């Protein structure tokens, strides 16, 4: 288990190697890598603010929820904070399991819950100044899907 909240960048490949090395029972690793997106050259930087201490606790709680729902071998969650330029890595989630279905589903669940429950806030910088990113209804709806089934009822 590994939850890290850090300012510095991370090495995605190295994190996956760390997750899978010295084990032979892992059959699948599903990953998500989130980047600072600038799709219309409107964004010069993104600053992520967070609630130190609480953020780590929330991420650990989200991981624990995933482990209750799926049979997982290991999980790595890394989320950066501070000022990031476009193209920079923001977040990675990697889930190791015996089989792919648990890994895929848990990875999606972790990102859906992270986006709606972990205390991070994004400030976008562009040519017109700075503004705080508004939460998206779509993210809430995605996270809500996982609450339909009671926890523990869906072990893969």
């Amino acid at each position, binding site marked *: 288990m590994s939850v890290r909240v850090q300012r510095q960048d991370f090495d995605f490949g190295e994190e996956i190697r760390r997750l899978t090395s010295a084990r032979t029972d892992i059959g699948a690793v599903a990953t998500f890598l989130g980047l600072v997106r600038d799709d219309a050259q409107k964004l010069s930087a993104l600053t992520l603010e967070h609630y130190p201490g609480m953020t780590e606790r929330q991420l650990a709680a989200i991981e624990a929820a995933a482990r209750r729902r799926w049979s997982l071998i290991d999980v790595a969650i890394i989320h950066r904070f501070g000022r990031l330029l476009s193209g920079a890595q923001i977040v990675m989630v990697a889930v190791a399991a015996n089989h792919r279905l648990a890994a895929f589903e848990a990875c999606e669940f972790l990102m859906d819950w992270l986006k709606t429950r*972990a*205390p991070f806030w994004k400030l976008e910088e562009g040519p017109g100044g700075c503004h705080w990113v508004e939460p998206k209804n779509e993210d809430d709806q995605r996270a809500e899907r996982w609450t339909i089934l009671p926890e523990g009822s869906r072990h893969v």
Partner: protein
Amino acid sequence: MKILYFAWLRSNIGVSEEILHLPQDVVTLDHPVRQDDEVAFFLPVTGG
């Protein structure tokens, strides 16, 4: 008691935290609020 402000709340208020001295009898529905508590206003989050 320490009060924390984040994101646009902090921008609008102009400070990231404040110390408030509470009257002795402040309580919420199920938890007494004490001077050494920390209160944070949890805005809808936008990480990931």
